[in-house]
């Protein structure tokens, strides 16, 4: 199984809603990532988890709250989002996150989020 599964595929939410994005992998990877991608732009790194611990937060606003309940699951909790947060949210995993630079990321298909 070389898949990263993201749910839901599409999400529409109001600015006062609370929602969660989910990501799952069963490749035994111990590093998981959240990226945000606006239309016709490259993916932007948001968070990195290594061995279920938050390793990197790229100065993401607190209305985005990541959670890694176990080595296979990664969640992104959303609250009080703004319309400019509308984007494709991508989850990825890799075997580890280390000082080596030959990481290969496996991406899910993403959640297309629209904030009204």
């Amino acid at each position: 199984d070389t898949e990263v599964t993201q749910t839901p595929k599409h999400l529409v939410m109001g600015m006062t809603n609370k929602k969660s994005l989910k990501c799952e992998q069963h490749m035994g990877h111990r590093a998981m990532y959240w990226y945000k991608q606006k239309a016709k732009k490259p993916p932007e790194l948001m968070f990195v988890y290594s061995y279920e611990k938050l390793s990197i937060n790229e100065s993401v606003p607190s209305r985005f709250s990541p959670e890694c309940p176990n080595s296979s699951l990664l969640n992104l909790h959303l609250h009080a989002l703004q319309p400019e947060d509308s984007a494709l949210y991508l989850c990825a995993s890799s075997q580890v996150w280390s000082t080596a630079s030959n990481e290969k990321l496996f991406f899910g298909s993403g959640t297309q989020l629209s904030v009204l």
Partner: protein
Amino acid sequence: LAKTTQPISMDSYEGQEVNITCSHNNIATNDYITWYQQFPSQGPRFIIQGYKTKVTNEVASLFIPADRKSSTLSLPRVSLSDTAVYYCLVGTRNSGNTPLVFGKGTRLSVIA
């Protein structure tokens, strides 16, 4: 952080070989060069990775000169389904740097 520079876009006819060059003048000694492909509304997909000289797999070839300041992704005999954005990534793990940062990528359009 090793910054990468790629052409913004390229056009090609079906059946032609396409070469996309990435410049990474500040590549560090231990850095690998990794290429990803991304179709619309999908996550990027790993294509190929190399450290020096030439690497080939069933999808593409990667050519890296001795100075490693650039690399070229070669796609043989492209088809319409190769229309995508191609990203070149070079990792640098100095303190405080994030592991994998995507540059602007090259938008390849394959024409029938």
